[in-house]
C-alpha cells in the first residue's frame, strides 16, 4: 500500500506544482471544449484560444511567483 501511495503522490505531483496554474489550465480546456461542442465555436479558433490561454496562464503564474518573491 505504501508503494501505491508513493506512486499516487508522485503521479499527482507530476501535474500539480502551482495549484492555480493547474486549475486555470483545466478551466481553459473545459471552457474551450464546451464552446466548441455546444456554442458552435470554430474548432480552429478554439485551438488558437488554447495556445493564447496557455501563454497567458504561464505568464500569470511566473509573474505571481516573482511578485511574491519581491514581497
Amino acid at each position: 500500500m505504501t508503494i501505491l501511495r508513493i506512486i499516487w503522490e508522485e503521479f499527482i505531483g507530476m501535474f500539480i506544482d502551482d495549484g492555480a496554474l493547474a486549475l486555470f489550465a483545466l478551466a481553459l480546456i473545459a471552457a474551450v471544449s464546451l464552446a466548441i461542442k455546444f456554442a458552435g465555436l470554430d474548432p480552429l479558433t478554439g485551438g488558437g484560444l488554447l495556445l493564447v490561454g496557455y501563454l497567458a496562464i504561464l505568464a500569470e503564474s511566473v509573474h505571481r511567483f516573482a511578485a511574491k518573491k519581491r514581497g
Partner: protein
Amino acid sequence: MDNFTTISSTIFTSFLASFVEIVEAFTIVLAVGLTNTWRSAFTGTALALLVLIIMILVLGPLLQLVPLTALQFVVGVLLGLFGMRWLRKAILRASGFIPLHDEEKAFREETEALSKQRGLGRADYLAMIAAFKAVLLEGVEVVFIVIAVGSTHGLTLYASLGALIACVLVIGTGLLVHKPLARVPENSLKLVVGLMLTSFSIFWTGEGLGVAWPGEDFAIVVFFVILSVFSAIAINLLKSSHATLAKEPAL
C-alpha cells in the same frame, strides 16, 4: 511533417525528457552504492524497475481500449499540466527566482543522510529504500512521458527506444566517470523538454477537440517556436526584475 520527422521528434522528446529524469535517479543510486553497498543500490533499483514494468504491462493494454480521439484529448490535457509545470520551473530557474538544480549538491545531501544511517541496524534496508524510491519516482515520470509522447500516434515503441537510449547513455557515462553527472545542462534541457511537451499538448488537446491544424503535424513546430519566443521574453523580463531586486538595499 513526414513520417520520419514524426518518429524522430517522438524519439528525441522521449530521449531528452527521460535523460533528465534518469540523471536525477542515477545520482541517488550512485550515492547509495558508494556510501552503503552496491547490493543495496542494485536491489532497490531492480525492485523499482519491477514495479515500473508491472505498471507498463497493466497500463499498456488498458490504453489500447480507449478511442483515439479521447486518448489524444486526455493525453493532451495531462501533458499540458506536466509540460507547463516544467516550463514554469525552467523559466523561474533561468531568471534566478529559484535556484538551479545541482546534481553535486543532491549527491552530497544524499551521501550525508546515508552516512548518518550507517551506524543503524537497518542501514542496508534504508539505503535500498532510498535507491528504490529514487528510481521509482523518476521512473514513473519516464513511463508517463513514454506513454504520453508515443501512444497518440501509435509510436510507443519509438518513445520507449528514446528512453532506453537515455538510460544506456546515463548509466554508461555514470559507470565510466563514477560520479554524479553534474556537467549535464539539466536546466536548459528541462526548458527544451517543457517547450516540447507543451507544444505536443496544445496539438493533441486540439486534435481531441476536432481541430484540423493547418500544416498538420508541422503545427507542433510552430507552437514550439511561439512558446520559445514567449519563454525567452519572460526569462529576460524576470531576469531584469530579479537583478533590480538583488540591487535593492535590505531594509
